[in-house]
Structures are given as structure tokens and as C-alpha cells.
């Protein structure tokens, strides 16, 4: 297994989601640590475009061959786009968690929420403590 990486331009949560700024919006996915812990992802269930998500609440589920886990929203906002290719290719979450494996794009209700998330160094330290 390749070493797990945590790109510096992203922000993270202790629930192992990542967030990336995309103009005024924020793209959300799960971290390399999360996909590695889950194992082979076989199914992803995401909210619909237009749905509202709330920080700390579940916005979907990710199912691997050994577990089903909730996806926890890093911040609150409205879903403006979702990655429908994950329906047919959920394994992308394993192979490219920060790229093609992205999950939803959100218009945050609080523009400052993003900056309050963990940076890569803090998250790396958190995963090491977890490990």
C-alpha cells in the first residue's frame, strides 16, 4: 500500500472528510486515511443537488466490503453538484480520493467555516494519534 498523503491545499475533519476551495464553493470527499481504513469501496450514497447539509451531520454513506460508514459534513451549505460517476465506479474513492473520487460540491452558508477546519499538518498528526 502506497503511503497515505494529505495534500497541503486541502482542509480536513476528525471524521476523515476533506474540503477544497473551488471559487466560492467547497468540494468535499473522504481522506486517504478513510478510504484505506474502509477497504474496497463498493457503493456511495450522496445527497441530491439542492439538498442542504449541516456541519457534523450525515450527508450520505460510503459502503465497503466490510462496513458501511456515515459521511459527516465538514460544513453547512447547499449541494450544487455531486459526483454521479461514483455510482458506477465507487472504487475511484480508493484509487483517487482527492481527485476523481470527490463526492459533492457545496455552497457554504458560512464563508468562514472552511478556514476553521484542520490543516494538513494538524490532520496528519490526528491520524497518527489514531493509528
Amino acid at each position, binding site marked *: 500500500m502506497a503511503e497515505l498523503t494529505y495534500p497541503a491545499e486541502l482542509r480536513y475533519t476528525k471524521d476523515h472528510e476533506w474540503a477544497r476551495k473551488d471559487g466560492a464553493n467547497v468540494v468535499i470527499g473522504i481522506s486517504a486515511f478513510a478510504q484505506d481504513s474502509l477497504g474496497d469501496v463498493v*457503493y456511495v*450514497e450522496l*445527497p*441530491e443537488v439542492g439538498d442542504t447539509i449541516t456541519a457534523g451531520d450525515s450527508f450520505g454513506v460510503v*459502503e*465497503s*466490503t*466490510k*462496513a*458501511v460508514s*456515515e459521511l459527516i459534513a465538514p460544513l453547512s451549505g447547499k449541494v450544487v453538484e455531486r459526483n454521479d460517476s461514483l455510482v458506477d465506479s465507487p472504487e475511484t474513492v480508493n484509487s483517487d480520493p482527492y481527485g476523481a473520487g470527490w463526492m459533492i460540491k457545496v455552497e457554504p452558508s458560512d464563508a468562514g467555516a472552511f478556514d476553521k477546519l484542520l490543516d494538513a499538518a494538524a490532520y496528519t498528526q490526528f491520524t497518527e494519534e489514531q493509528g
Partner: protein
Amino acid sequence: MRYFPHTESDIQEMLQKIGVQSLDQLFSTIPSNLRLDRPLAVEPALDERALMDHLEELASKQPKGAPFLGAGAYPHHVPPSVDQLLMRGELYTAYTPYQPEIAQGTLQITFEFQTFVTLLTGLEVANASMYDGASAAAEAALMAVRISREKKTKVVVSRALHPEYLDVIRTYLQEGYEVVEVGFGPDGRTDLAALEAAVDENTAGVLIGYPNFFGVVEDLAAAAKIASDKGAIAISCTAEALSFGLLQAPGALGLDIAVGEMQSFGNGLNFGGPGLGFFATREKYLRLFPGRVAGATVDRNGDRGFVLTLSTREQHIRREKATSNICTNHGLNATAATIHLSMLGKHGLRALALLNYRRARYAREQLAAHGVAPLFTGPVFNEFAVRAPADAQERIVEAGLSGGLPLRRYFPELEDGLLLCVTELHDKSRIDALVAALS
């Protein structure tokens, strides 16, 4: 799997191990006023021969032959070969062995049961059975809510659905959901205009009996269209699964979920239970449907094998987030149905269904010719309601027959309605005796 009762020496050994003198001492923490200080008030045990005489005497008080009664549990011939195969030690257990390493036969039967359910219902996926038709109907209603991502909270149910199914649906959906009933017309079918008026944007699912409680075959395609036009899930509930031998499959009529009771295949009446629920749906809803599922796969040698699959949705893994509370099935009953269906085959199933249809039609026509008119005008399979004389039940018993359900028990407005069921177990002479008793 074998089980042995404890012998007296087993019990003594266990008591000694934990340092207790007697069973009384073991139970000493139970307050004495809660303990029975005398033997249970039961008659002394009979020896085997005397017991069999006693049981035969009790049985002789029953009217002979199958009752003219369906209403959710249908009298059908269970070939002795079903019971013979069911008695095999590998199959005859309350718990189904699921470990793929030791239970390939059991898992293959489960997989074949699912295959039969998909063939009968015309849908793509089926689970390994539910408790009974009523709980399957309630689970289907909950699944419709899940498909709406819990955004829709209303379920519309035909009043011509089995009233006890409706009770169970109400029980399952009592917190946070709305169950709306829609009436039926003089044909005994669900009032489609009323259905159309009741189904709205907040309706998660629509449940229709097929055939319904009155034995009437609904216009399922029209009901399904009303549901899907409003984005609701169309659900059919079939208490008499033998009807699939003649009727169009729900999947071909636009239904999203087909549930019901499969007791008719390989399972006797058993005093009303246990039943055998079935549950089928479209593949796109695979992850939202309840219960166990057996899947086909290949082992490391590339040989075909069977395993339980999609278990990640279930309670023992997802706990309170599980798809459904049901985490088990009626494996033995499903096995009996699978054996019976595999012996019937495609042509046998159709022949048996036709026999039921023709005998019921003969009974219905003879009754009508003798002044006992049908209660409804809609098409029926092997069950139908008539306008019966007030003393109908007494007359049936006096003629040495049994059955017939007075509909006023569930539908006060159907005061003189009597629901009758005629299957392959009712030959012409018995039908003629019923007609003579009622006319």
C-alpha cells in the same frame, strides 16, 4: 445440528461446578412469593398409545376436508415429498446455517428461493424471505420512505388490502408517518379516482392488494401509473402467491416492489402460522431493501458458490443505522416453498393455478344460479365474496363443511358478505354440498 436435553447427572455436575447444592438454592434469590411451591396443574402424562388415541378423538371433532376459507392463509395440497425432504438433518433446524464453508446446500436453496420469487413477481431482485405477508407489506412501506430519502412521510393504502396487513402497516408506521386509506367500488376494486386524489407529492408509496382481500384482481397497471406519476413507489401485496401462475407479474405492470405471502407453496395452514413473506424489487433499489440476501459468486478455484451478501446493511454491522430491523428470515418455510415450486415447475404451476381458478369459477357460478349472488363484480382468482344468508356459517357447519369468513368482522358495511375460497382441495361434490347448504 443436534440438541440433547440435560440429564440429572449433567445438572448435578453443573451445580457442583458453581458450588450450589440444589436447583432450589440456585433460584433462592427469586422471592418465595413469586415461586410456585407445588407442581404445575397439568394432567398426568399419557403413554404414547393413549396420547395418540386422545389426539385422534380431538381431531375427529374437526369437520373433514379443507375449509372454504382463504383470507390470507390458503388450503393447498402439500406433496408428502416436501415434508420428506424437509426432514433431512441438514435442513431441519430452527436456525439456518449460513457459513459458506459448511452450508453450500442451504445457501443454494436460499438463492433458488430468491430466483423463484423474481420469476413469479417479474422483478429483478428478491430477498431470502420475510416473516409473513403483513410484515413484508409494512417493510415495503418503510422502504418507499427510504427511497424518498425520508423526505416523504405519507403512505396510501387501499382499504381492499388485507385488513390485518393494514393493521401491521399502521403499527410499523405509527411514529412520524401518515397512513391514508382509499376505499373500493362495487366491483370490489380500489377506487382509482379516490386513489388519484389521495396520492400527492408527499406520498412515498402506494399499496394495493393483488388479488385483494376480496379475491378481486385489481387494475394494477393503472394504480402503478397513478403512483409513479406523482413520484411514489407502487407496491403490490399478494396473499395468494399461487395466483402468479395465471396473473400478469407485478414487475410487468410497472410495480416497483412486490411483497406478500408464499405459504401457499409447500407450507400447510399450521393453525395460521408460521407464514412465509416474500419481497422483490428492482435492482436499482437493492441497497435499500430489507432482509437477508444470498448471492452467487465463485470460489478461489473458479467454481460457483453461494454466500450471504449485502450484510453490511444489517443490524449486526450497522446497528441503529441498519436498513431495517429485520435481520433474519423464515428459512425452513422458504425451503419448503422452494422444494414445492421446483417440483411443480413452470407448467405444473400454471396447471395448478388454472385448476384453482376453474373450481372457484364453478362454485361462484353454481352459487349464483342458486340465488347466492356475488358481492362484487370484479374478476377473481380462487377467492370471492358472496351475499350470504344470515345463518350461512351454521348451515356450512351443519353440512359437515367449514370455512367462509363473514366480512362484517372487518367491514361493517358489508353486513351479508361472506368470503369463500376454493382450491384444488375442493372437488365437485364438496362444492355442490356447499352450494346446497347456502341455497
